[in-house]
């Protein structure tokens, strides 16, 4: 499994495209928002946590279809399915690799974009914490969506239609943590619930993803 993780990370970094693209998209999105809503500092400060969360979510979505699609096309997914590692483990590793190349860099980049969007000083810490806790759930749910649509020719569009509604609870709690943290309020409840969603998806989604993969590889 560790070998698989290393292989996926190396492929993601060296094969170009996916790795930097999500981050660049996140940057562009955050730059576009002030053009849309106007440059008033207090308006931006109010919406900054939500915008950054939505931006992170959409950037995550961009690279989802690469989780399984490339391996499916060149046949290495079939090899993985017959390997001694269970498919559930493969799904976890794939999701982890996706998070390390998407969720983690997004989390680290977010405070920089927070400066652009005039995020209140109290919000930076909570924004990073909420993204660090919440983005693994995005990758795990996304791996399930990618597993569902892996055999399809134009799976990308369907993937976003399937996955975005599933992101609703994560987005609500994540943005709550960031918004309430920025406003200087107590963030205990949403943070615990967000962590609960991440833990729950880590426990359950790999099984759903593996089931979908088995059906698609049949």
């Amino acid at each position: 499994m560790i070998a698989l993780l290393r292989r996926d990370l190396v492929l993601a970094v060296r094969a170009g495209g996916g790795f930097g693209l999500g981050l660049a998209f996140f940057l562009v999105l955050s730059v576009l928002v002030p053009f849309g809503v106007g440059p008033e500092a207090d308006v931006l400060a109010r919406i900054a946590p939500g915008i950054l969360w939505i931006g992170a979510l959409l950037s995550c979505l961009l690279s989802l279809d690469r989780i399984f699609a490339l391996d499916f096309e060149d046949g290495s997914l079939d090899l993985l399915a017959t390997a001694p590692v269970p498919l559930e483990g493969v799904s976890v590793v794939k999701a982890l690799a996706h998070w390390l190349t998407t969720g983690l860099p997004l989390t680290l980049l977010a405070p920089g974009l927070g400066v652009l969007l005039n995020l209140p000083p109290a919000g930076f810490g909570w924004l990073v914490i909420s993204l660090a806790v919440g983005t693994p759930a995005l990758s795990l749910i996304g791996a399930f969506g990618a597993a569902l649509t892996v055999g399809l020719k134009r799976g990308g569009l369907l993937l976003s239609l399937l996955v975005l509604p599933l992101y609703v609870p994560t987005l609500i709690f994540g943005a709550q943590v960031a918004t309430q943290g920025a406003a200087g309020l107590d963030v205990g409840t949403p943070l615990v619930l967000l962590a609960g969603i991440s833990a729950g998806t880590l426990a359950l989604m790999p099984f759903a993803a593996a089931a979908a993969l088995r059906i698609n590889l049949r």
Partner: protein
Amino acid sequence: MSFWEFANPKRFMQLSSRLLPWVAGLSLACLVVGLIWGFFFTPEDYRQGSTVKIIYLHVPAALMAINAWLMMLVASLVWIIRRHHVSALAARAAAPVGLTFTVIALITGAIWGQPMWGTWWAWDPRLTSFLILALFYMGYIAMWEAVENGDTAADLTSVLCLVGSVFAILSRYAVLFWNQGLHQGASLSLDKEENVADVFYLPLLVCIAGFVLMFLALVLLRTRTEIRARRLKALLNRERMA
């Protein structure tokens, strides 16, 4: 005789062809009686005036929108566990009906909300979770359309339905949390069942029965269509092979 014998498409077709006219007729009768009773022979509410009468469409549609998903969940489970094709096709048949009910509930709610709340739409927990439910239906239907192989599509949509159910419930409570976190005093959502007097309640019950039967009739009809389409496809494939 076991219940599962109706999983045989032939038995199902026989039974449903006998059942369908009755269910459809009864549903029509209930709807005609309930709606006419509700629209013309109930007093107007002293505060809401005649707008209260949209309740006879809104509440049954909302009720069935949720129950349709529940039925799809059960049918998906039956397909995963016992591999009965009729079950998978029934789940497929129910999805667009459920989506339509969801949209009816949203639209009638908006029509009622405009004079009462002064707005077509508010980000109230109930409204929002219904919108999310509509999104789930769309994803489910799109998944069925996208996969070519029938059995693969049935499997994938079943898994999607199971996962979607968990997330739909999660979203329901997350939305509740979200709105209470932002606004207080959600005076927008009336819990209608509690303060409805008998004059309104009885025609409402008839309408609900009508909607349940209508759902049943539509699902039976659509499942029959799906089975016929499946047979046609099999015949065409056989022709091509020969």
